[in-house]
């Protein structure tokens, strides 16, 4: 009796969890299905066609925008990795007078909402002539991601034993050598986590791209898509094809590096 009840309740749980799967996956199903219909087929509610993909590629330079997104995202992630690994090493292992206060201020940088700095940022960057230049957007993204990344790297480096470093020092290694040959290889998991988190966040961002990369030649795919939407384009299947294209790279990164994302979250919790 009790066992049947137990089994029934587990069945019920399974059904509920499956329903949640439907809710979570539905947008992907809808995007895919709709994108493979022409506009007329979409209105009719059946059929298969590559028309909308053709429309999408005719309307916006998809490949160019994917390329732009890649340049901006990879550029910013590389800078973030460079400054967060060196910074993390310094804050975790090479304290100097005032470094603790600086680290705290850096953490406070995580609390600054983008919207609160965006106007002067825009004016400053345009003062350097870097609006519509990849460098401008890359630097802004790097600065926005750096505090959290540095925090994660610092936390990680704190867990690495001092004896390793001391032993290398005894052997006459310089701090740069220790960083390159001891710290970096040991922190590959944390580096991957930071890279994946930042990649997804920057790839998916709209605001910075919208303001700092306005011309079609430098536009990212996310901005290109938003422009389509706000130009009142009515071809919904083409819009869905665009959504799918823009989402795909981040989804692939997610599927490959899922574990690292979860770890990023738990590292953020300080576990």
């Amino acid at each position, binding site marked *: 009796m009790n066992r049947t009840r137990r089994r029934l309740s587990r069945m019920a749980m399974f059904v509920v969890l499956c329903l949640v799967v439907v809710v979570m996956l539905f947008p992907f199903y809808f995007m895919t299905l709709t994108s493979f219909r022409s506009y007329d087929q979409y209105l009719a509610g059946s059929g298969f066609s590559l028309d909308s993909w053709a429309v999408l590629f005719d309307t916006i330079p998809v490949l160019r925008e994917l390329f732009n997104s890649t340049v901006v995202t990879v550029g910013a992630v590389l800078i973030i990795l460079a400054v967060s690994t060196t910074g993390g090493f310094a804050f975790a292992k090479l304290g100097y007078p005032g470094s603790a206060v*600086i680290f705290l201020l850096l953490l406070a940088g995580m609390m600054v909402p983008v919207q609160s700095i965006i106007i002067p940022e825009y004016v400053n960057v345009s003062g350097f002539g870097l609006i519509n230049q990849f460098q401008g957007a890359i630097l802004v993204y790097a600065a926005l991601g750096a505090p959290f990344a540095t925090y994660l790297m610092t936390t990680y480096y704190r867990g690495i034993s001092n004896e390793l470093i001391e032993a290398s020092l005894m052997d006459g290694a310089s701090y740069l050598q220790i960083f390159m040959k001891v710290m970096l290889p040991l922190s590959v998991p944390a580096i991957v986590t930071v890279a994946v988190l930042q990649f997804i966040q920057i790839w998916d961002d709209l605001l910075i791209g919208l303001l700092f990369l306005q011309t079609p030649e430098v536009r990212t795919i996310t901005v290109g898509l938003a422009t389509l939407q706000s130009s009142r384009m009515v071809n919904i299947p083409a819009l*869905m094809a665009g959504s799918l294209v823009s989402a795909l790279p981040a989804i692939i990164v997610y599927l490959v590096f899922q574990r690292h994302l979860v770890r990023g979250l738990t590292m953020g919790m300080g576990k």
Partner: protein
Amino acid sequence: MDLAGTTERAAVGQTEPLRRHRGGRPMGGRRRAGFVFSLPVILLVAGLLVLPIGQTFYYSLTSWDGITSTWVGLDNYRQLFSDSTFWQVLANNGILLASIPLAILIPLLVAFLLNERVLGWRFFRSVYFLPTAISWVVIGMVAIRFFASEGILNNVLRTIGLGSVHTDLLSGEFSAMIAVIITFIWSVFGTNTIIFITGMATLDREVYEAARVDGAGAWSIFFFVTIPMLMRFIQFAFILTLITAFTALFSLIFIMTQGGPGFATTTLEFFVFEKAFNNGVFGLAAAIGVVLFAIVFAIWIVQFRILRSRTD
């Protein structure tokens, strides 16, 4: 991604200094190396985060068109606080805040089920987390089609025989906000679920067994065992969700509603953009940016206080 819960721990967590070895380098070398190694991140953050936040404070006290600014003291703030639209926008942020318990409770319940390790729970977990990879732009694009008058929601209603309940959420003032909130809850569902599963994995299963032996049902276990023991994680998720709601919904609103109808879905962060880049009143927009910063900062401070009182 922001972190919320335990910056404090990192902040107070002591860095154990390297011991100075006999025959090792003098301390000066280590300090100098530390300074040099931390310089890149300091310069980057100082130049592109700290400087602009300072400028925002300064320019909020000026009348500014992006090129020339004239000092006006607190005029922008006076104008802001006497503007009924500002209060409406603030109220919209209040509505977002009020929706957060739902964005916590639903993932909590689902995590509770997942934690029973039913068949396929790993698969469920990764599907639930998938939206974290999707941009707000894409989410918004689908959401429009979902809530539209000839959209998916109405199709579903018709299919299940509720065709008479025709919805058009995006064109009503209050209902547009509801649509944004539903989309928001959908988006943060995965992250919060993962946080709670992580939390539940740290709980001692014996406590559950003991409760069960004492005859507690699933509901009472959920409310009287799981929730109290997960408070730290619930708090973390709450702050994370709140910060997301106040500072990360720009793109979603931009795509779904453009802040409308009227100002019905304009939140503080969208208001900054609107005032600056659509109306060109940069000084006033900076003042709104300061208000937003103050609110977010206050949330973090409260969070630290709570954490500290709990660890003491």
